[in-house]
């Protein structure tokens, strides 16, 4: 048997949010009488971490500890409108809405604190540990809890805020396609290393190395979840997945997880990732969205690595071992210059 190794690269960008905009999201933030905050959304967490990332955005903006914020989603009676969780819009659109709502709530909180401390609200700062203090005179401070009690029972203030984020819908020129598809883009470069068996067409992905630019990694572990899981899905799209194995012929479609092929835990490979942060001017703390684009560079990187390994180009997905073998036979075997260096 002869195995050939090769590596391939792909660089991509990805538009953040629904194409052309016009996809609003709203958020409501309010404090209970003991200074604990609730974020009300109708946005969906389908595993990407919507609840968690908006919780961090809210805590950062309010200047309170993360434990003092809880995100409640999704209930159409209590959560204001959100377009939905798709098009990599969660972090960018919903994050901005939560930020706006938290800013408004924070302003009321600081006013209430100022009244209690008898200073100007502009002279106050939060310490991020649940206290509000006078800039330069930290001994003059009050807990967010006491501020909330005072606001509720003495001052009659509601420590709450509303937020919406909308990228206005862009026109499209029917003649030229002139349009504003997105306000910011994430970027990535991924290098895949593969081994190809030239007798069977089997392709094994040995390693992935990547660099993703995401504006800001609001939570590096959540970003890692997306990038690692997304790269797995990219590998799956590249080499395995199809509900129509003989497309455009519609026969022999899979009916279950045995027939629908995806890489198993025994097929995965190490993935070495770097994350870059070039803040998006209109992203929450500069953040874009890693959720969708993370899978995209893997497909072409693997296809290019296969060419580098055995000298055949596969233009059809998925790149099944059968397609690789047919291409190798058409070519009269693997390119001899690319024998395994191992």
């Amino acid at each position, binding site marked *: 048997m002869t195995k050939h190794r090769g590596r391939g690269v792909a660089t991509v960008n990805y538009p953040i949010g629904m194409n052309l905009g016009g996809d609003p999201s709203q958020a409501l933030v309010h404090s209970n009488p003991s200074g604990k905050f609730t974020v009300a959304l109708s946005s969906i967490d389908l595993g990407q971490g919507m609840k968690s990332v908006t919780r961090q955005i809210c805590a950062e903006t309010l200047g309170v500890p993360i434990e003092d914020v809880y995100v409640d989603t999704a209930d159409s009676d209590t959560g204001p409108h959100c377009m939905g969780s798709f098009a990599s819009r969660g972090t960018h659109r919903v994050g901005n809405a939560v930020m706006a709502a938290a800013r408004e709530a924070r302003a009321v909180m600081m006013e209430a604190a100022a009244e209690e401390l008898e200073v100007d609200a502009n002279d106050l700062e939060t310490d991020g540990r649940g206290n509000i203090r006078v800039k330069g005179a930290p001994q003059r401070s009050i807990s967010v809890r006491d501020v909330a009690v005072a606001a509720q029972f003495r001052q009659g203030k509601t420590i709450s805020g509303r937020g919406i984020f909308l990228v206005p819908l862009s026109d499209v020129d029917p003649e030229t396609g002139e349009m504003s598809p997105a306000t910011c883009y994430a970027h990535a470069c991924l290098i895949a290393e593969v081994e190809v068996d030239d007798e069977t067409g089997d392709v094994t992905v040995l390693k992935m190395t990547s660099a993703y630019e995401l504006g800001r990694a609001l939570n590096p572990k959540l970003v890692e979840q997306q990038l690692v899981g997304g790269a797995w899905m990219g590998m799956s799209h590249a080499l395995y997945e199809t509900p129509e*194995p003989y497309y455009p012929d519609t026969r022999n479609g899979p009916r279950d997880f045995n027939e629908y092929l995806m890489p198993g835990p025994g097929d995965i490979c190490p993935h070495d990732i770097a994350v870059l942060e070039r803040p998006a001017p209109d992203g929450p703390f500069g953040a874009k969205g890693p959720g969708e684009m993370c899978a995209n560079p893997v497909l072409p990187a693997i296809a290019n690595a296969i060419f580098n390994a055995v000298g055949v180009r596969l233009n059809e997905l998925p790149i099944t071992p059968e397609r690789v073998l047919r291409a190798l036979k058409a070519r009269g075997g693997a390119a001899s210059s690319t024998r395994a260096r191992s």
Partner: protein
Amino acid sequence: MTIAVKTFSRLGEAASALSSERGARFFGGGTILMRMVNEADPNVATIIRATDPAFTRISASSGRIELGAGVTMAAILADRELSFLHPVARAVGGPAIREAATVGGNLFAQNPYGDFATALLALDAIVTLAGGFGQREQPLEEFLASRERSGAILVTGVAFKRPAADAFRFTKVTRVRPKGISVLSIAAYLPMASGRISGARIAYGAMDRTPVRGKAAERALEGHALDASGVGPAVAVAADGTSPVDDAIASAWWRREILPVHLRRLLLGAGHV
């Protein structure tokens, strides 16, 4: 229509219930039958179960190995005497499926399932059947050829001669590790006489409607050594007489193309699971 579940303590009683009732299906491990039930398959009206100890008995101490049809893949993996079959049992599903999947169920599993039956075919297993006629034995090869027509009979067990040490080899080709279903599987019983093959039995899974013998390869191997030149003729005719199908996993073309490659690797020891 609700399902009736009938449990018998004797295999014989279970067998006659199976042959006498319409829509009766025997419950082995459930991995096939319960899916039919969940999908409201109109062909399943009654589930017949047997608690007879013989159904799950393993006797492997002697040169003749007997496995009750209810023996699970997990039970085989737990039995040191059957270590030569462990690669086969481990190739069936994940651990949870192996706790349920049975020897008997494998004999009825539709292509591309039934890797254990492929191994039993290479081992020249004899199947014990029970039905209205009482008990009888039948070579596995005959049973597989006629299983669609054989109707409501109960397989109570299988028996086969223990292969000489290292004379049995098995490989399963799959797209998904560790538990994908078969692109194909190959089981080979390779008895040696003074360094040469004598009386090899080779069986393929997923290369036809049921597991089938690779008779052309068997003949071409006779009298040869297991080295590159020795296996050449067998590899050349490996796919002769097979008729694989296109399915969601692989095309017939690819199965035929790679069968010789994997047979060669198995015979030369490279593909041993």
